[in-house]
Structure formats: C-alpha cells, structure tokens
C-alpha cells in the first residue's frame, strides 16, 4: 500500500492530479486505454522518486511528461512489433513536452473521464474498478485489496473494461446534451455504490475498506465542484456525509453492529453533519428535488435528533412518501413501512408489509422478514417476531448482520416471559397493542 511508504500529502496530491494528468495524456494520444496504463506507471515513478529526490516544482507537468514518455515508448514498441515504419510514434515523441514546459490546457477532464469510466457498456463492477483507478488514482493492488480479490483478477477486470470502452468507440469528450442527464445518473450511481461498498463493509475484519467511503466522498466532492448547480450531485455528496458522520458510532468494539436507536450520538461527526445539511439546504432551495436529496434529507432528520426518541418520524414518513413517488424501489417501501409504524403504530406498518408480499422483487427477501420481525416486536408479538428474526438471519449474507439478528431473537426469547419484555419498561419503542 502506498500509504505505508509515503507521506500522506504526496499520496493525496497524486490522487488529486490523476484525472488531470490522464485527461491531458488521453487527449494528446487519442488512446484512453494505453494512456491510463502510462499514467499508472508515472504515478508509480513519482511514488519512488519524489520522496528520494524531492517534489518537482510542477508535479502535474512532471507526471504528464513521464506518462507521455511511457506512451511514446509504448507506441514505438507497438510499431516495432508490427514491423512497420513508426510515423505515429515519432510524431508523438516530437510532441512530448520539455522538462517543466507544460503547455497542456489547464482544463479539468475529471467529468469526461467519469462519464467514460461509468459508461453503460460496462458492468457495474468494471465501472467501479476503472473509476477508482483512472479517476481516483488508486493502484490496482489497492482496489483489489478493497474488494478482497486477487490483484491479477482486478487487473484483468480493469483491462477488460478498457477494451469494452475501446470497442464501443466512445470518443474522449463529454456526452451530448441529450445523453448527459442519463449518463450523469450512471456516474452518480457508481459513486454511490463505491460509497456503500466502503460504508457497509467497514465492520469487523474489513476495516481497510473505510478507504472506499472516503474515496467516494472525495470523488463526489470533485463532481460537485465542477457541477455546483446540480441538485442531485449536491444531494449525493450530502447523503454520503450525513451517513458517514455516524460511522464512529455504528460498530462496537467487537465489530458488532449497533442499530441507529442504540448508537452513542455524541460520537457522530458534527462537522460532516453541518456540511451535509448546508449542502442539502442549498440544493433543496434550487427546486427539482431528486432521490439523492430526499435520502439525504431523511439522513439529516435522523442526524438532527439528539436522542433516538427525539426523531421527527412524521417528517421522515413524509419524506419517504415523496421518495416513493420518484423511486419505485421495494427497499424504499420497506423503510416507508417502518416510518409509518413509528408514526401510526406497528399495525399500520405490518399492513404496508402485507402489500409487499406480492412484490416479486422483495417477497422472500430476508430484509422483509427482518422488518416484519421488528414491527411484530413493536406490536408485542414476541413469538412471531422471533420466528421472523430467525428466518431473516438465515437469509442474510453478512456475518455481523446474521449475528445481530440471531442474538436479537435470542434476547427476545429469553425475556419474552419477563413482565417488562426485552427492553424493560422504558424500551426504545412505544408498544401499541
């Protein structure tokens, strides 16, 4: 890992410069795939040389120059391989800049690169890997480590992604205005997936994956800086910050999950919360409210409650109702049922869940059982709650979540016979019998 051998500022600087350097080299040589490899080699050279020989005066120009030289070498050897006259390589070589003479345009190609890396021709996992390498500046080894696969597999995935881009003939330019909204949605979705991958897996043995959540926030920040007027970009960044703010309280010492209602809220990161709320407030004021802004708004309502019992559930319920209108997603419907139960009592929530039983996208999904168990527990029907907690535990593929569900069922079983129920007389949920 770079972080162990380098000062953090150099590592950060390299990551910041990656899209700018790649944009310049890809533009000049009209070969994104090869330019991407050349830039990785230049980053590696910087990691070795900078700490030893000192940082160059113009790090960006240095990286472009080294990458361009690699590119020229590559094109020469390609030409030699084809046993032809190397006209292209010679031309390219002549164009390579002199030391520090960086006359590349200062335009920021981050967006163009993101659109390319998140092209719909790619599978999700390929788009994620390529985005982290080409735009995020992470090494293949770092990405492989974060996703717990061998480095060779990740290298192959990235190389195939680049082949797909080459084959699809996507030009290195911003999408047309007709395509743009849809392509931006794809970019935001990839950033959202990177964030989730880092956030949700940060428990237990996977602490090293925290990096992914930070990386997603950094990328979302750079998109927001380039498109400050886009409400959904701001909404996504706010959602990440407002969610990530709770990370310190989210797991216990053994890596076990702590549900929102039981978290020590003094551990929440107030700076992230303030920044998220400010971003969201500004975005909402501009109109055109989308799904990321609504999810951020829900996260904000949770974050603003000093104690779990202070949560403004009627507002969350109203936000879920809006969210359901813009996003036809059964997971949203599940959370809507929880909010309805918190406002109108568990029987209302259970009634909403019955409607989901016939939705093939979620019927039989363990999370439907987990929510049903929770609402049955709220309703005081512990026997049925235990049954559904156990069904849910059998269906999840996450160890911390499985352990949580099993222990919750066990605790409910042990104390179901005690007069006060599992949480004592002042349990976290009001029971509506």
């Amino acid at each position: 890992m770079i972080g162990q051998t380098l000062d953090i500022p150099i590592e950060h600087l390299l990551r910041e410069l990656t899209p700018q350097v790649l944009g310049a080299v890809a533009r000049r040589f009209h070969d994104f795939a090869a330019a991407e490899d050349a830039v990785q080699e230049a980053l590696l050279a910087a990691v070795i040389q900078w700490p030893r020989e000192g940082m160059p005066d113009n790090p960006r120009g240095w990286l472009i120059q080294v990458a361009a030289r690699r590119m020229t070498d590559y094109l020469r050897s390609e030409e030699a391989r084809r046993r032809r006259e190397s006209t292209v390589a010679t031309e390219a070589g002549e164009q390579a800049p002199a030391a520090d003479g960086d006359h590349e345009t200062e335009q920021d190609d981050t967006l163009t690169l993101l659109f390319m890396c998140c092209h719909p021709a790619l599978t999700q996992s390929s788009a994620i890997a390529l985005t982290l390498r080409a735009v995020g500046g992470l090494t293949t080894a770092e990405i492989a480590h974060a996703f717990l696969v061998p480095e060779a597999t990740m290298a192959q995935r990235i190389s195939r992604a680049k082949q797909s881009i080459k084959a699809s003939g996507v030009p290195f330019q911003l999408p047309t205005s007709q395509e743009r909204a849809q392509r931006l949605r794809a970019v935001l979705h990839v950033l959202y997936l990177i964030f989730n991958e880092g956030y949700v897996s940060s428990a237990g043995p996977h602490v090293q994956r925290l990096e992914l959540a930070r990386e997603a926030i950094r990328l979302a920040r750079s998109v927001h800086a380039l498109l400050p007027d886009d409400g959904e970009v701001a909404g996504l960044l706010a959602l990440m910050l407002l969610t990530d703010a709770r990370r310190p309280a989210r797991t216990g010492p053994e890596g076990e999950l702590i549900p929102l209602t039981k978290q020590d809220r003094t551990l929440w990161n107030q700076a992230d919360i303030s920044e998220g709320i400010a971003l969201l407030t500004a975005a909402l004021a501009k109109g055109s409210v989308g799904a990321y802004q609504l999810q951020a708004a829900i996260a904000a309502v949770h974050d603003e409650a000093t104690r779990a019992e202070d949560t403004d559930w009627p507002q969350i319920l109203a936000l879920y109702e809006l969210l359901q209108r813009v996003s036809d997603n059964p997971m949203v419907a599940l959370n809507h049922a929880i909010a309805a139960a918190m406002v109108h009592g568990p029987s209302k929530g259970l009634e909403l869940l019955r409607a989901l039983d016939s939705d093939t996208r979620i019927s039989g999904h363990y999370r439907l059982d987990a929510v049903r168990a929770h609402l049955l527990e709220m309703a005081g029907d512990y026997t049925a709650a235990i049954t559904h907690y156990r069904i849910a535990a059998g269906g999840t593929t996450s160890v911390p979540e499985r352990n949580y569900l099993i222990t919750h069922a066990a605790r409910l079983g042990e104390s179901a016979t005690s007069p006060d129920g599992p949480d004592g007389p002042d349990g976290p949920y009001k029971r509506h019998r």
Partner: protein
Amino acid sequence: MKYILMMTGTKAKFNSFAKWSKEDLRANVAFMRAFSKELKDSGVFVSTVGLAFPDQAKIVRAGGDGEPITDGVFPESKEFLAGYWIIDVESPEQAYRIAARASTAPGPGGIRGSIPIEVRPVIDQLPEELLR
C-alpha cells in the same frame, strides 16, 4: 458478490475416476485448466483448490483430554468435496452459468459431464441500510 462453487462426489465416483484412461484424464485436466483460465481472463477469479482423494480424509474430534480422535471409515454414499472455486460476479445468475460450465467437465470417453455443483454465496459484505 462472491460465490463458492463446490464439486462433490461419492467415494465410488472418486474410485472410478482413478480408473480412467490416460486420454480421458488428459481431457479432464485440459478442461479444468481452460476453465480456470476463463475465470481469470474474465476477471471473476478469486481462488480455487483441488483436494486429495477421500482415502486420505479423516474426521477429527477432540477427545475428553483435547487429544485428536480420528475416524476414517465412511459409508459409500457419503459425498466428499473434490475441490472448489470462489468467484466474484455481478449476479447469482452469472454464478449459475459459470457453475453449469464447470458441470460439463468431460468424463470417461470424453463424454460431456453433468456433475452437480453446489453454489452458495460467500458471506462478505453488509447490505446498505442500517438495521433498525
């Protein structure tokens, strides 16, 4: 999403495997090699192992003193793991397609196989929403 693909067989199956002709074995090994390469080339490979024959299998338990007690006589019908692959794919359907490909590993006479492959998710990541 990561999945494990487990190839199993009874002792009788393993014993018959030991009696295959050289050509049949060669064809089977070539298939396995090609299959592993396909997994690697397509960027889904995580790991794989092949196991020794069940003759060498022992069931080990701790005795009262914590010392190992081994047991190695198994009924003919018992299924033994022959080996596994772990893959990282986009969907369960993709895992099933890859498992079906493994299932066709050729048998005696080069006849296309239909070996049962058990496919199970590998526990790895947590879903996005917090528990309530």
